[in-house]
């Protein structure tokens, strides 16, 4: 459905109607109609505290640090310090794949927690943390390090996790990173990413400044790829085909040693800008390593990104890149030939974290699909500035949308596909809208890279052209008019 700017604005106004005045005024700032002429400036308010009383789908700072940035570092144990729930209900939910033997030399899917009880809240949990670290050392001697991920109560009762981490770290001779990522900090998981990046800087990069590491001229690091369903692996194939050497993966299937070696690379490649731009800015200022954003969703963007990356290297890499692109083309042209006719002209509405709505647009467009609405949970102004040129004029943009707003938008825009998180999934499926969970790829993936694109296209086809959507209405509630309309 083509919409004009006026129509989209009318839709926003209509949805805002139900709010009391103060809430309406505030929410109005978070909803906008895309206007490419306005590119580069502030079009939408973001990264603000959610409106009290409405359902937000944001997470907390702990989720940003433990769940996103630190969690996938596989050879460390990340202690969820505090009550058991925060870690248990988020355990392994992000599907960060890794190699290794879980419980022996890799610990990604385990939930390790200090399991606070009333006693620990009253008398403090530092002793318990120290005891837990000792116990972990005995049970899992092959850990390369530990991180202490604070949950809300730890900050509230004022425990000194830094002192415990320092003392135990010296005792065991291992890196122990205290992370002050209590859930109440900041307005969303975004601050958790930032805090986690800062702790990597302070406890991993700075103490290892002078570390020896044999380098080559073609060393790069993958930054901000969490290997969801194997994403980083399919990205790595492309980079290695280009002739580059990937020395570190931050942080999907990554290790502590890889992170320590990163300040020696020639170029940092940033996939998820929102969660890891902090650390590459630091390395740029401190170690003089340039960084570049890239995007491996869909052929158009893959090609663009490969050339962009190759531009930082010599002619050998550039020539090799062109040769590889030629080879890839044969691969993805087949995918497009197969799926584009089945998906052409369909519309998608996306509401995901802080990066994907703008990154994945190219992949949909390669399949002939169109974005009719895009929104972020926790993006910042720079993310919206980068989104504006990617989506068409008059596209609906929304920031930290409430459950109500989202449902209304979907009812009005009637997209052929909704892409969002697990909390939205069943609501929209029950409303009869094809839905893909775009945080963890709905138990599928990888979606990055050339191999990922084939899986992506297949999944979208499976979802949208699934015969079940025709049977959403009980036969006895079907009206004659609807039947007629179908045959007409």
């Amino acid at each position: 459905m083509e919409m004009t700017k006026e129509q989209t604005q009318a839709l926003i106004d209509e949805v805002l109607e139900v709010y009391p005045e103060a809430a309406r005024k505030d929410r109005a700032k978070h909803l906008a109609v895309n206007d490419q002429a306005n590119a580069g400036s502030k079009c939408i308010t973001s990264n603000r505290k959610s409106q009290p009383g409405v359902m937000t789908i944001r997470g907390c700072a702990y989720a940003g640090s433990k769940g996103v940035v630190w969690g996938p570092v596989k050879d460390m144990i990340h202690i969820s310090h505090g009550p058991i729930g925060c870690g248990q209900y988020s355990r392994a939910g992000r599907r960060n794949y890794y190699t290794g033997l879980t419980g022996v030399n890799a610990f990604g899917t385990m939930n390790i927690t200090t399991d606070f009880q009333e006693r620990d809240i009253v008398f403090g949990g530092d002793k318990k943390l120290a005891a837990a670290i000792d116990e972990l050392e005995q049970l899992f001697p092959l850990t390369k390090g530990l991180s202490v991920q604070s949950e809300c109560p730890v900050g509230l009762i004022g425990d000194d996790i830094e002192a415990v981490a320092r003392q135990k770290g010296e005792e065991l001779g291992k890196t122990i990173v205290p992370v002050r990522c209590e859930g109440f900090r900041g307005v969303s998981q975004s601050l958790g990413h930032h805090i986690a990046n800062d702790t990597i800087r302070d406890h991993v990069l700075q103490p290892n400044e002078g570390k020896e590491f044999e380098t080559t001229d073609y060393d790069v690091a993958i930054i901000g790829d969490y290997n969801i369903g194997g994403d980083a692996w399919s990205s790595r194939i492309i980079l290695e085909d280009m002739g580059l050497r990937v020395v570190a993966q931050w942080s999907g299937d990554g290790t502590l040693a890889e992170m320590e070696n990163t300040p020696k690379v020639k170029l940092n490649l940033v996939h998820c800008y929102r969660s890891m731009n902090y650390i590459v800015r630091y390395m740029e200022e401190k170690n003089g390593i340039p960084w570049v954003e890239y995007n491996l969703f869909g052929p158009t963007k893959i090609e663009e990104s490969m050339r962009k990356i190759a531009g930082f290297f010599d002619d050998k890499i550039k020539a090799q890149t062109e040769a590889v692109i030629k080879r890839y083309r044969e691969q993805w042209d087949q995918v497009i030939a197969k799926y584009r006719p089945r998906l052409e002209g369909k519309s998608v509405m996306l509401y995901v974290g802080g990066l994907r709505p703008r990154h994945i647009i190219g992949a949909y467009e390669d399949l002939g699909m169109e974005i009719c609405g895009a929104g972020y949970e926790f993006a910042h102004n720079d993310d919206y500035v980068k989104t504006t040129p990617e989506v068409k004029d008059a596209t609906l943009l929304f920031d930290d949308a409430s459950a109500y707003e989202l449902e209304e938008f979907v009812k009005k825009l009637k997209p052929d596909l909704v892409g969002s998180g697990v909390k939205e999934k069943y609501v929209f499926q029950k409303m009869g809208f094809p839905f893909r969970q775009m945080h963890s790829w709905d138990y599928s993936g990888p979606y990055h890279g050339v191999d990922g694109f084939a899986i992506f296209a297949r999944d979208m086809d499976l979802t949208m052209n699934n015969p079940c959507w025709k049977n959403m209405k009980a036969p006895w509630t079907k009206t004659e008019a609807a039947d007629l309309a179908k045959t007409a």
Partner: protein
Amino acid sequence: MANVMIQYNEQGELCLYLPKKDLEEAITHFEFDEEQRWGGEVHLISGAIYYIDPMPSRPKLPITVRAKRLQAA
């Protein structure tokens, strides 16, 4: 006073990054961007204005410096 990072963005334009607010914004006017003098008023696209004490030479970018906010966005 706030810590800000002055840097070039991908298009090679100057921009200011405010770590405290996680905000990266394009610079529309940078008062002294010369070899002998660097700093002064920094105007952002959002309308905010910052002031950096001028330095005697142009530093290597990116650089983190202290800046005073003269005007809010």
